[in-house]
């Protein structure tokens, strides 16, 4: 007989997959690198400064709240505050002043996440909460656009492709931003939303890492395509094509990186479809018939509200269960 060993006692299962919350979060951070790089290429030092300020202020705010709530500080390292900072910066116009960005970051983490109890408990996407706050508090700053550094145009009248579409009747005038530019990112817009290519590159990585639910981007893009496609086919001289709507504005970043936030999206497959279709439809409605040129942010925040309800009423049918009612 060998000497008695002290054995670990735990309940089954004893094997587990190697993925973890921080690994998922850092996968998202890594997936955003191409877009961050693209924005630095297009907007130079402004982009770098906005990223630095947003991430630093998000982490600091998180630390202050954790400290106040007497929670262990190690959850700072889970990567979620870094994502919020990155995503917030990406939704800001490149000309946003640094103090406004900092306020947005405080609101994103404070009101968007920590007041609900921190990671896993928030209802709304924290970065979008910060952005929505800034949109209301600083409406002018949040709608002032500058062209990418590589574009030589008149700065004073510069508009985003969607703004151009909405307020300047671009389709009729034949001045709609070419799809090619939307794809590469050589257009005006928020920091991280301009280059569809860079965003899609990161999205491929997210799928590979299984860090996002494919149903969400697919559902959003399909609904938006059908909705905008319907009007485009009806009146091509007034409405832009579905492909334009997919590539322009914040749709790609919203569909792949924000609506897919695990904490604020549904857990059941049916609920996820309803959520995705709802967002796609609402984006279409706002863009085509609303007062704003862009509607991704409000659509996601609106549907975030319904996630608890969707989770409750879309329970999957249990194997062998016969549904009454």
């Amino acid at each position, binding site marked *: 007989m*060998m000497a008695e060993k002290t054995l670990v006692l735990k309940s089954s299962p004893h094997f587990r997959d190697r993925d*973890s919350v921080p690994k998922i979060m850092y996968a998202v951070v890594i997936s955003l690198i191409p877009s961050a790089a693209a924005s630095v290429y297009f907007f130079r030092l402004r982009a770098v400064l906005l990223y630095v300020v947003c991430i630093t202020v998000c982490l600091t705010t998180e630390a202050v709240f954790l400290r106040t709530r007497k929670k262990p500080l190690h959850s700072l390292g889970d990567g979620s505050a870094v994502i919020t900072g990155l995503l917030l910066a990406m939704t800001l116009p490149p000309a946003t002043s640094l103090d406004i960005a900092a306020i947005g970051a405080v609101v994103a983490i404070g009101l968007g996440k920590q007041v609900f109890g921190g990671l896993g408990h928030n209802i709304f996407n924290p970065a979008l909460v910060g952005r929505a706050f800034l949109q209301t508090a600083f409406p002018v700053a949040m709608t002032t656009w500058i062209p990418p550094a590589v574009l030589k145009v008149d700065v004073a009248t510069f508009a985003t492709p969607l703004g151009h579409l909405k307020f300047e009747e671009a389709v009729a005038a034949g001045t709609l931003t070419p799809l090619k530019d939307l794809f590469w990112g050589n257009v005006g817009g928020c920091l991280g939303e301009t280059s569809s290519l860079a965003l899609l590159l990161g999205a491929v990585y997210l799928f590979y890492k299984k860090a996002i639910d494919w149903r969400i981007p697919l559902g959003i893009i399909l609904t938006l395509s059908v909705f905008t496609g319907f009007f485009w086919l009806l009146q091509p001289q007034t409405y832009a094509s579905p492909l334009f709507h997919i590539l322009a504005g914040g749709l790609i970043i919203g569909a792949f990186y924000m609506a897919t936030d695990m904490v604020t999206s549904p857990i059941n497959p049916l609920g996820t479809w309803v959520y995705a279709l709802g967002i796609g439809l609402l984006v279409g409605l706002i863009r085509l018939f609303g007062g704003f040129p862009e509607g991704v942010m409000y659509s996601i925040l609106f549907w975030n509200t319904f996630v608890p309800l969707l989770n409750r009423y879309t329970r999957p049918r*249990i194997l062998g269960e016969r549904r009454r009612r």
Partner: protein
Amino acid sequence: MRAKSFPHGVHPPEHKELTEDKPLIPLPAPEKVIIPLHQHFGSPAEPLVQRGDEVALGQKIGEGKTLFSASVHASVSGKVLSVEAYNHPLGKPVLSVAIGNDGEDRRSNQIQETEDPFVLEPAQIIHKVKEAGVVGLGGAAFPTSVKLSPPKDKPIDTVIINGCECEPLLTADYRLMLESPEDILNGTELIRIATRAERIILGIEDNKKAAYDTFLEKSAGREVEVALVKTKYPQGAEKNLIQALLRREVPAGGLPFDVGVVVQNVGTAKAVWDAVSHGRPLYERAVTVTGNGIKEPKNLLVRVGTTFQEAIDFCGGLTEEANILVMGGPMMGLAQWTADVPVIKGTSGILAWSAAEVITEYTCIRCGRCVDHCPMRLVPTQLMKYVRYEHLAEAENWGVMDCVECGSCQYTCPANIPLVHWIRLGKTQVSTARRKKSA
């Protein structure tokens, strides 16, 4: 042939290479065996012997008196040393018969061969199975005689023989399939006769091609369908195997009977054959002793009542780093606090490796992976929250009792939440509440 399967589930690393090529070898009977009188689902057996009695190999030493019980037999010949409570792999000490082995293996005169088992009536087969104390050898140890006696209003049309062995690391069933295919097929035929079924399907995971080929060859001329199923966990869970092979859903809260099916593990089929044909009670079983905490992993034929320590010592002992000892597979097995526990009828594996002592738990980030992988289509994270915050009625509405505790949810959980643990707690609380209500 395309492998059949069920939706959801997981694919943990298999690590079967440690023992899959190691034939089953008998572990020499120890000097003393400790045979618990409770090794099965149901009520304990009552002792038939007392201290000082001489017993023979295969002699009945505990009688399963109720329907949901099973008799227990001596696994060596010799003298009864004590009848008292002893450590048990399921946790609580259990009344056990300790027998000093005289090394002679004198066979009990209760053991009698049957000349032609295939002409027996169903009732005779079931009687012999009950007398031999046969229980399900897949792990749950449900009394086989009960499974062979479906209620009159629930006719059985199909017998499914479970050769999935979907738990990682375990290879004992695989070796049985390679080494005793005839016995398994014969036992299967007896099960078919006993349940008056028409069809027999043998389901084997596609990582055990050698076993599949063996059965294809051996089943020629027999009315047995050998089916390949996908290597996926928990393919061998009764309800999922039925779903994969027959596309039938066992109703929630119901049993395979309800859809005309009886599922038996390959080891159980062999035990049925041994019991009915040779009159041999279940006092020995195939056990995989493995994991990187075991110096020389092996597949063993172990007498019931041998301690884990003896089986481990025969396999070169534990490594320095080994700090967890598990009975069963790594997904559903039970961690042990000591190696001084006896092998029981439900011991399919003895595993050891080195496990992290502290695991960081995060809050649920609602990723939904548990929902995507639950083979019962439950919402584990929601069940966990209902149990945690004591909403038992909600937990029940959301199907907490349908959980089979396979562990797929917790396997995929990136937040390391002990989901199965919470759900088990909920199940216990709900059944306690139900019992109180009916009392």
